[in-house]
């Protein structure tokens, strides 16, 4: 036996040298040399029950920590099962390195067993990718993969390693390093120009995107708000940058945003976009978005500037330095601020829904208040996702983990796995719906295997609620394939996986159930039955301006399930 390390051993030693402690994956034929080297390595490998779970868990681990998440899968179906997770990380700019096994090089291109061109398949959804041909390149490629994943606007990177390359011995033993990347400093002239616009504005407004969290610029945003008094709205991914209870925070903008946030955007004469990308769910009808506003657009990614809305002043570079550098002499904006606050008060959410059924927005608000500053929500996708964004309180960023750009159902449970492992001292709660939960329900086995004390709130309306809502409102109540009333008994399913589980059906049970859930020691599921007719309000209809919001109508009790 050679004393030289194999390519697989170089994979493991390089991961350790790069600071990896936890990774998520699922073994198989082509990646067996790497799993052989993994055994006894000291790396904490979490064996998920589906590769999509590995990608989502690595994504959430990265979001919660700010470091690079790592997942592994074998060739063919193992690799393709990662794809939804890779696309999710790409859309939300999450640093994830995905390592896939590939069939041996002599079989590549022959339609070998479990062969798929994962490099080719993933080209549009990765920041970069490699197919490793020489095991000696492994340390340098992995080091560069980590650097690329994390630098600038982060994203997923794929490293595909053929089985023979992983198995080959090679005369390389030390991990390569990659030079640390420094974000470019913003242009001083652009900052001056931005200050001038702020000084001329009567109705300035901050538009906070997910780039602030990624750029670790939350403190700078809070300081900017404190020194200027400019009110703020956020995107889905910007939630938590300002405490959601902050006086000048008007809430999320866009399709399911608050009325106060959308009114402020439409009335603003200056929109200061920080790490935001003018996504269609935020802007609604683009040419009617912030119609009276000049735009200051600050972002690390120059390709976002002028992509959808022309910027009057563009600032490309480090958001921390950009925001810290903004020190305008503030004009008198008190009347504007008072109007924003008055709108916020007038259009605040109300929780006195009629009936005795469980009102999900109220439950979620109460959950976040009980969990306090250490609350981390790992959301799935659907109505519950919007209710979390609207009603939960978040004290800081990296606490609201949600599949934003991709909108991938099935994210919540594996994301909860990743987040709880990343932040074991936090109240990590997966909030899911019955449609989403079924998409990665197998990951309850992962919770049980490692006794990960994740808490799950499953809001069950026996339907695909958001699709049902749109069919009700925009497709003349032509309900098509949204009925999930034949769901399994989720409490019994959870118990079969080894979790504690219990169910509530009436509003008076909510407070006690939440206390019981948060106090539970092991992984626990709270199954919550809600009215299938419940909708998410307010709502900007598709293709409409954010000024055209539909509001809730409480004209009949919502307790007849």
């Amino acid at each position, binding site marked *: 036996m050679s004393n030289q390390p194999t390519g697989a051993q170089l994979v493991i030693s390089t991961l350790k040298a790069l600071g990896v402690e936890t990774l998520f994956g699922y073994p198989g034929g082509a990646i067996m040399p790497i799993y052989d080297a993994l055994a006894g390595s000291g790396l904490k490998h979490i064996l998920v029950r589906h590769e999509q779970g590995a990608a989502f868990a690595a994504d959430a681990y990265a979001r919660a920590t700010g470091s690079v998440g790592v997942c592994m899968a074998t060739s063919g179906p193992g690799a393709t099962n990662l794809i939804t997770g890779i696309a999710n990380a790409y859309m939300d700019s999450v640093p994830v390195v995905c390592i896939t096994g590939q069939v041996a090089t002599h079989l590549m291109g022959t339609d070998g067993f479990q062969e798929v061109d994962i490099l080719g398949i993933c*080209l*549009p959804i990765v920041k*970069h*990718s490699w*197919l490793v041909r020489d095991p000696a390149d492994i340390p340098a490629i992995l080091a560069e993969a980590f650097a690329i994943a994390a630098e600038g606007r982060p994203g997923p990177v794929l490293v595909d390693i053929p089985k023979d390359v992983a198995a080959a011995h090679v005369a390389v033993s030390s991990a390569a390093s990659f030079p640390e990347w420094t974000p470019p400093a913003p242009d001083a002239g652009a900052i001056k120009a931005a200050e001038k616009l702020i000084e001329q504005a009567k109705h300035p407004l901050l538009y906070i995107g997910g780039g602030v969290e990624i750029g670790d610029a939350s403190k700078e945003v809070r300081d900017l708000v404190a020194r200027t008094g400019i009110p703020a709205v956020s995107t889905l991914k910007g939630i938590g940058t300002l405490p959601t209870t902050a006086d000048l925070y008007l809430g999320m903008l866009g399709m399911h945003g608050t009325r106060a946030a959308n009114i402020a955007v439409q009335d603003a004469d200056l929109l200061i976009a920080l790490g935001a990308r003018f996504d269609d769910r935020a802007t609604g009808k683009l040419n009617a978005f912030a119609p009276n506003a000049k735009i200051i657009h600050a972002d690390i990614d120059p*390709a976002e500037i*002028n992509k959808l809305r022309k910027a009057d002043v563009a600032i490309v570079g480090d958001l921390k330095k950009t925001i810290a550098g903004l020190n305008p002499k503030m004009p008198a904006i008190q009347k504007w601020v008072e109007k924003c606050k008055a709108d916020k008060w007038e259009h605040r959410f109300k929780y006195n829904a009629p009936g005795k059924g469980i009102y999900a927005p109220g439950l979620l608000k109460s959950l976040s208040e009980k969990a306090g500053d250490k609350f981390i929500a790992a959301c799935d996708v659907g109505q519950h996702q919007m209710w979390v964004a609207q009603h939960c309180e978040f004290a800081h960023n990296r606490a609201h983990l949600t599949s934003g750009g991709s909108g991938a159902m099935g994210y919540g449970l594996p994301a909860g796995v990743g987040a709880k492992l990343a932040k074991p001292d936090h109240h990590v709660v997966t909030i899911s719906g019955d449609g989403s939960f079924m998409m990665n329900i197998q990951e309850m086995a992962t919770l049980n295997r490692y006794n990960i004390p994740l808490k799950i709130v499953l809001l069950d309306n026996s339907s695909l609620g958001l699709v049902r809502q749109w069919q009700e409102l925009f497709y003349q109540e032509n309900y098509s394939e949204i009925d999930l009333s034949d769901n399994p008994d989720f409490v019994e399913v959870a118990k079969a996986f080894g979790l504690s589980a219990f169910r509530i059906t009436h509003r008076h049970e909510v407070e006690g159930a939440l206390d019981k859930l948060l106090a539970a020691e092991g992984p626990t599921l709270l199954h919550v039955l809600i009215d299938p007719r419940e909708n998410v309000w307010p709502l900007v209809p598709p293709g409409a301006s954010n000024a055209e919001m539909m509001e809730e109508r409480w004209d009949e009790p919502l307790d007849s399930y």
Partner: protein
Amino acid sequence: MSHLIHIELDRLEGSLLRILGLVERRGFNIDGAELYDLGEDKRGLSLTVRPRDLSRSLDILGLQIDRLYGIKRLASDPRGQAAPSPTEPKAKINA
């Protein structure tokens, strides 16, 4: 209107597909393509592209190309040929 873009590619697996896919995915037709050797593990690629609709900006496409690793936009034809004006009709472009 057609535009000519000159690109330098590292000789890496997937780099050609990466750039062609990006151009099409971001809303441009590829009307012509010429691949040539630039030595030292580099290849040159000259693409004639045309936006599918008026909302597509060549400037934004250029910035999206700049985000790719191992791929670099060039200001002019690296073979030393005179670059046609971006407004020149496609028929006059050597693609």
